[in-house]
């Protein structure tokens, strides 16, 4: 399965046409992390936005696990949108494959794709409902 097919199955991109999705795949790339590698770094600026394509990761702050992430989850977006360093680490707990959108490009990416923006908002809303105390 190529990247475009794999992304097409994620809720975040469900509204994009194949041509739009292909343009996304041509603009950004994926990255794979070994288990134990840190992906998002607490307190350090300039992080990117990650969409989990495969594998699992753990959100940790000050040595405590806050939640786990798996296929379809997005992380790093709050810090990219607010231009603040993440308040938690994200560490791969298995081999982790993510699609990566550079932090500074998130705003334009979402404004050009309002349906993706809406889906992301819904994900954030659900996250607030179920885990209100956690802020990335």
């Amino acid at each position: 399965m190529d990247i475009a097919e794999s992304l097409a199955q994620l809720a975040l991109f469900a509204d994009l046409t194949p041509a739009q999705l292909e343009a996304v795949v041509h603009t950004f790339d994926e990255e794979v992390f070994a288990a134990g590698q840190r992906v998002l770094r607490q307190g350090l600026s300039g992080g990117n936005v990650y969409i989990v394509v495969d594998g699992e990761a753990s959100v940790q702050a000050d040595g405590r696990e806050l939640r786990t992430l798996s296929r379809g989850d997005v992380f790093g977006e709050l810090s990219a949108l607010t231009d603040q360093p993440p308040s938690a680490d994200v560490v791969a707990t298995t081999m982790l494959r993510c699609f990566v959108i550079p932090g500074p490009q998130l705003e334009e990416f979402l404004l050009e794709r309002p349906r993706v923006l809406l889906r992301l908002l819904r994900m954030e809303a659900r996250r607030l409902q179920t885990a209100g105390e956690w802020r990335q």
Partner: protein
Amino acid sequence: MAAITGRAADRPFPPGRYDVVVVGSGPGGLQTSYALRRLGVRHAVLSRDDAPGGMFRHLPIFQRLITWTKPAAPVPRTSREYEWFDHNSLLADEPELKALVPGLMDRSFDLPSREEMAAGLAEFAERAQLEVRYGCAWEGTRLDAERVVLETSDGEYEAGAVVFALGVTQPWRAAVPGLEHAAHYVDTTHAERYADRRVFIVGKRNSGFEVAQGLLPWARETILASPRPVETGALALSALRVRYLHPYDEYARGGPGTYVIDATIERIERNGDGFRVLTRGTTWDGSLTFDVDDVIAATGFRTPVRDLPQLGLVTVSDGRIPALTPWWESVSLPRIYFAGNASGGARGVGKRGAGASSTAVNGFRYNARVLAQHIAEARFGRTRERPSIAREDITPYLLRELSGAPELLVQKGYLCRVLTAVDGGFVDDGIEPVAHFLDAGGPDAVAATIEVDGSGGIVPTIYVRGRGGVAEHELQPHPLRRYDTEPYERELGSRLRDVLGSRSPG
């Protein structure tokens, strides 16, 4: 083991057991072998080619590189600082091996021609007396817990670690129906073949623009198409801007003849002696059909990894590039390392999306040197010398590094200079990947690197590792990028006060 022929017996590195095997004799392989030899690591170098130079013996097709070498510079060619002015020579410690490319250039451009680059690599291999077993093709691989076995045309090689430096040179075609009938970039060879023809180029990255540029004096019409729009802002800061942008210039002026189209290529069909290309817009609504004489797939390249995916090699970019740890080891196959262009598979921290220069000689020559050191230490226990540095010298040393260290200037945000606290003092740990420094933990330490901010500005950055984790200090930018001055000493001194002061004898 296969029988060794008379010819093979005269060649270096007969099949057998080595600490490390390096596969490839392009710039990545030569740089790795040079660095391993300096560290005293016993290794073999194998190459299917019959001479050094790798891809520069064939590519780029239109004969000029996009990375600079400046024969004249404000520093001597034998200095470390000169490496910033010469992005194409391999690295060496001996003066007679340094900066070989500028001496071979005719100086009609500050970008070497393909022949000048190839000659520089051959000269390096010759002068450094780097031994390579040429004409020896890697054909298969076996792995077990302790070793890697390479099956080659000459027999079997066993090693504790293998470094593949094979470039990203195997033609790759995007999954477009019918694209298999098209020529690939590597098949274009002579531009005059396209005289008075209508040419459709699939791809708008380096190789697409390079081909289009080469065809402008010959082709009747040139169409470049791919889904992603050309980002002129990004291109203006990329090495590509130096050449190859005339096709875009012609299109941007609004007339017919040369087109740069944002479209998905839906299908390519045979059409008499030519082709019909069906496209659908990505940044505009609708579809367009092109009847052309030629289609060229400029959809890029992949790393030639042979049977490694069957053994579990994990890749990125639709299988084109191995996914690597910060030390350029496969994330899934231990003891399998990549040097050269494929070292770009270790993406680094990618702060604000910034990429390293690992896919060009200027960057991967440093990766290779750091990799060799890592292999020597981590796999063979060869600890390197770590000179001590006096506490009062730390601030000026880091500022000098930020002002002129070529590793930091080229591999921005990717490699850093590290000083580590040991026994009440500090030692110079050399150059390490930034991702390793940030994530591996360890004793108190300071790292210096050069980063790029959201608008392309150059930001000297210091990371301080202490008990509470890593803190980040971005220093003020400077228009001349000179940080070895009193105001910076004061600023950095105050930021380092905690880490330096805590061990102060009083």
